[in-house]
């Protein structure tokens, strides 16, 4: 990249929805007895996300909370994650996470994939600020780690 002349719009980054989630985070907190629990940490900036998930008897997400501290992007992305992922099974969670990653990598998504991540498109503006992509992905990386750990430990199968 050439940083000499590129001008990026801060409006793309700080969309209203994002700042809303940052300032009024949904589902913030920590579950006492979660089925899945996982932490994401970015050593370079110190941002932190803790996810805790309770599954119902069918293996679907019953309750997802996040906790943590960090910039608007990491916190908003986590908040949006908790909203979008309620009442989904683990395979669905993974599909959504992979689709979101694909979007953040700039890949073109199928309409099926697009519909999976409905509402998250507002985060696409982050792509213009490459250093901030990690912020947007922090909660999702934690989610994937949590599912993997759960699969290995609880379901006793390789993810």
């Amino acid at each position: 990249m050439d940083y000499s002349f590129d001008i990026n719009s801060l409006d793309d980054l700080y969309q209203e929805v994002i700042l809303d989630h940052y300032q009024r985070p949904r589902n913030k907190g920590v579950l006492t007895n979660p089925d899945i629990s996982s932490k994401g940490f970015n050593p370079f900036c110190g941002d932190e996300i803790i996810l805790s998930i309770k599954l119902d008897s069918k293996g679907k997400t019953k309750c997802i909370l996040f906790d943590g501290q960090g910039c608007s992007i990491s916190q908003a992305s986590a908040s949006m994650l908790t909203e979008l992922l309620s009442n989904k099974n683990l395979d669905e969670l993974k599909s959504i996470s992979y689709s979101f990653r694909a979007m953040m990598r700039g890949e073109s998504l199928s309409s099926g994939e697009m519909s999976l991540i409905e509402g998250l498109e507002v985060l696409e503006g982050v792509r213009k600020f490459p250093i901030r992509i990690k912020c947007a992905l922090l909660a999702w990386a934690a989610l994937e780690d949590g599912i993997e750990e759960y699969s290995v430990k609880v379901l006793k199968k390789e993810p």
Partner: protein
Amino acid sequence: MLDIKAIRKDFPILSRTVYGKPLVYLDNAATSQKPSSVIETITNYYQNYNSNVHRGVHALSMEATEHYEAAREKVANFIGAPDSTCLIFVRGTTEGINLVASSWAIPNLGPGDEILLSEMEHHSNLIPWQRVAQITGAVLKFIPVTEEGVLDLENLSALINNRTKLVSVTHVSNVLGTINPVKELARKAHNVGALIMLDAAQSVPHMPVNVQDLECDFLAFSSHKMLGPTGIGGLYVRPSVLKTMQPFQSGGEMVKEVTFTSASWNDHPFQFEAGTPSISASIGLGAAVDYLQSIGMDEVRNHEMAITQYALEELKHLSEDFIFYGPNDISIRGGAISFYSDLVHPHDLGTILDQEGIAIRTGHHCAMPLVRERLKVSATARASFYIYNTESEVDQLVKALKKATRIFTNAYKKNI
């Protein structure tokens, strides 16, 4: 008074733009920019007398060796070392501290011995000692940091006691800006027979530093923070201590006689410089020292006091959401100002300022325990100054911070 306009002309990078806006570089505590004289010294080395040092009888090698050792003389002289044999070239402050940990502390410390640090240490002056503690059984103690951001010396006589073998503290904090009373600490340490190491990464570049005056035993600093190239730095060791130290890395250059099964060590400082050194960077550091000395370290310090004072005053005009860390007394603070606002997270401040061409640092500044456990935030934003920064740059900083506040305040208003 510094002629800042003239100085700025010496730094090619200061005329570049970022997103079409003039660069305002306020990340000097992370690394400084380089004057043309330093860049040209490196180019000249590679174009005219590049060669390996110390082992050649040909002209290039003799010329390179002369320049390399002349640079060592300059750097030793710059920090007031008694002579150049007690100045070891290292990659930077981090390697300097690791060298002391490996070559002095591990062979000398044992269970129950105490190493005294402070709560405001950079990871580089913390984790090597955690490792030493783990290996030797020594115990880490910490001088607390007060609310104001200075060392709390109230219980110092308990903290520096007969078990204390080493006091290792930062001369100037890279987060709080605090200048610590290291000479007092040195005396207290010596009174109980302990040694003292100074992390001088943030002092040597910014103020007159004299190792004999400070009565320290070890002092480490980085070239890249003092107008010099990356990949080099200095470690001063008091001569009487140097003689007792074990080798560090091993290989060529640091040995005298070698058989298949044994080796004897070369004289210091060479004993501590295994392998081909960073020749161009060492010579470049010599040029940086020349540049700083041509300005005068007192002048450097005066300029930074003035601009820091100005910045502290101007920054007060920001919304009350902003918290500023570190002492207000300018005589005990260097040119780094950390701040935090709940409204706009430091990381977001960083991005918004970047769009204005203003480079500040955000995060834990490699001092996670201080930032998370004492300041109790996950990150701060930090502006840090050097000889080429102007009051008008401070004004731009304040303006951009106001813009950031506006973006988040407007959203906030909408969102409630």
